């Protein structure tokens, strides 16, 4: 019973932790402009993150070593450094977006400018990382993130024409004033939002923190294969709410307020209160995960002592990296750059950097010296290689599409 409870808690945490500022903004934006015509990308992205996270989790559980330590050892310092720089910069950009998201949620609730909330949000992230146990912070914010199920309830209350939504989902092409170029650009953005690399670094590094072994493979796989797809359904409900309320009205989502408004229209003040707590939990939880991931990647690559399983004094460089990243986030946001725009760019850059972090894990997951009998099977390799191709296409097409569409305008 205890094990079953543990598995259930892990799945619930994975669902709640799946959605972050990138998913919130990108899904609402895409829903408002294309309806559910890009829903297939969410499905594709969720399958991709499942494949990616399962491999990373298995690598950690079997080898007992962190991912970036293995990447450096298996692929050499120079190639490893390339992967490190790409993934670190994308994770840092995501951290900036998440801190901005926390501040925007407070601005929406209080009317006080987000620039005033932002240093407090960054300080709170540091304090929680410093003081709170790994398992507690993962569970509490993951479970609070489940409040975003309010989007699914709001969708039901909005009484949509389900046939029309299904029709949109099964007709994957742009409509109205949208072009194929913007459609493709937002397809890449959605793909990047669903497969953000930090989710995998956090998940696999958490495996080292929690000392996973081959006995934990069932638990990790259930978290991935049940939790992530259910998290994907949350993403789809956000897009569907925007599709129902905004697409017919010609509203394009470009603020966090617009992301949350459908819950107020459907459920009133209670709906808005719940969604604001959910948004706070999702963005704050993701800010913790991205800050930790910044420290994890650098600490693991350079072979420093890292993680929350040791005292901060013993992993001082790991904590200093996180503090520097939080300070950089504050400085970037103080330039008054729009956090929603940062989010939009972060998911596209995430898609661009994904092959650099995905390929090394695929190579290690196929190496019998590290994995023994647990190396990738033929079917998994077939799927994993298809995804490698998709990631390469998305990565190569991202910048040209960003230029052609003027970042999706």
């Amino acid at each position, binding site marked *: 019973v205890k094990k079953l409870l543990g598995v259930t808690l892990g799945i619930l945490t994975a669902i709640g932790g799946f959605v972050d500022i990138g998913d919130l903004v990108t899904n609402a934006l895409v829903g408002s402009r294309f309806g559910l015509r890009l829903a297939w990308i969410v499905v594709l992205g969720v399958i991709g993150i499942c494949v990616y996270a399962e491999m990373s989790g298995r690598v950690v559980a079997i080898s007992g070593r962190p991912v970036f330590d293995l990447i450096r050892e298996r692929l050499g310092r120079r190639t490893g450094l390339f992967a490190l720089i790409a993934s670190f910069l994308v994770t840092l950009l995501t951290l900036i977006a998440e801190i901005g998201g926390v501040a925007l949620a407070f601005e*929406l609730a209080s009317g006080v400018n987000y620039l005033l909330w932002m240093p407090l949000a960054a300080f709170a992230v540091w304090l929680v990382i410093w003081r709170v146990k790994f398992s507690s912070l993962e569970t509490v914010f993951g479970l609070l993130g489940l409040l975003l199920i309010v989007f699914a309830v709001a969708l039901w209350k909005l009484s949509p024409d389900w046939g029309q939504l299904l029709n949109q989902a099964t007709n994957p092409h742009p409509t109205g*004033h949208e072009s194929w170029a913007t459609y493709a650009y937002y397809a890449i953005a959605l793909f990047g939002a669903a497969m953000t690399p930090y989710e995998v670094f956090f998940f696999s590094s958490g495996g080292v923190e929690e000392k996973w072994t081959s006995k934990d493979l069932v638990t990790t796989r259930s978290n991935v294969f049940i939790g992530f797809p259910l998290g994907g359904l949350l993403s789809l409900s956000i897009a569907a709410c925007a599709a129902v309320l905004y697409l017919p*009205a*010609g509203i394009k989502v470009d*603020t966090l307020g617009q992301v949350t*408004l459908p819950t*107020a*229209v459907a459920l009133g003040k209670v709906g*808005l209160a719940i969604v604001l707590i959910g948004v706070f939990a999702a963005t704050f939880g993701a800010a913790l995960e991205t800050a930790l991931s910044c420290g994890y990647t650098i600490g693991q690559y350079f072979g420093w002592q890292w993680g929350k399983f040791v005292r901060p004094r013993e992993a001082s460089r790991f904590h200093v990296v996180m503090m520097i990243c939080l300070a950089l986030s504050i400085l970037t946001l103080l330039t008054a750059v729009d956090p929603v725009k940062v989010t939009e760019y972060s998911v596209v850059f995430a898609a661009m950097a994904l092959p650099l972090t995905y390929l090394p894990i695929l190579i290690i997951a196929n190496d019998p010296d590290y994995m023994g009998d647990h190396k990738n099977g033929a079917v998994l390799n077939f799927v994993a290689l298809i995804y490698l191709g998709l990631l390469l296409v998305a990565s190569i097409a991202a910048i040209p599409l960003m230029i052609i569409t003027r970042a999706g*305008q």
Partner: protein
Amino acid sequence: MFVGAAGCGDPDQRMLSEGARAARDAASEISTARLAAQSLLDHKLWSRPAGQMVSDAEKSLGKVVSKFDELQPETEQSRKTYDQISGALSDAEDNVTELRIALGNNDLSTVTKQVDQLRQTGEQLHRLGELAK
């Protein structure tokens, strides 16, 4: 792509294209402000989030207006289009500012009037938005 390429060469078409795009963007902000204000009137939203959403719409609308105002009409026809769109955008901006002020003062009767006004302004902008792709 062809329409876009044609828009690059012909100043009248380019102005029409940019104007229609600006009108659609402005209509989006107008509809957001109206929806937020209507939700407040329906007691579905507190005044602070409603005010914040309207304020965000006002800022975004300001960016749309200033971006369009920077355009240079090169022909008589494009000047006509410029004036038409510019006038509609300016009205829209004024309406949202009025709404924001009314919300800040908790003046619900003015909010109700502005919601009706925004509906008309939004319809006008939607029509202008359909002038070109």
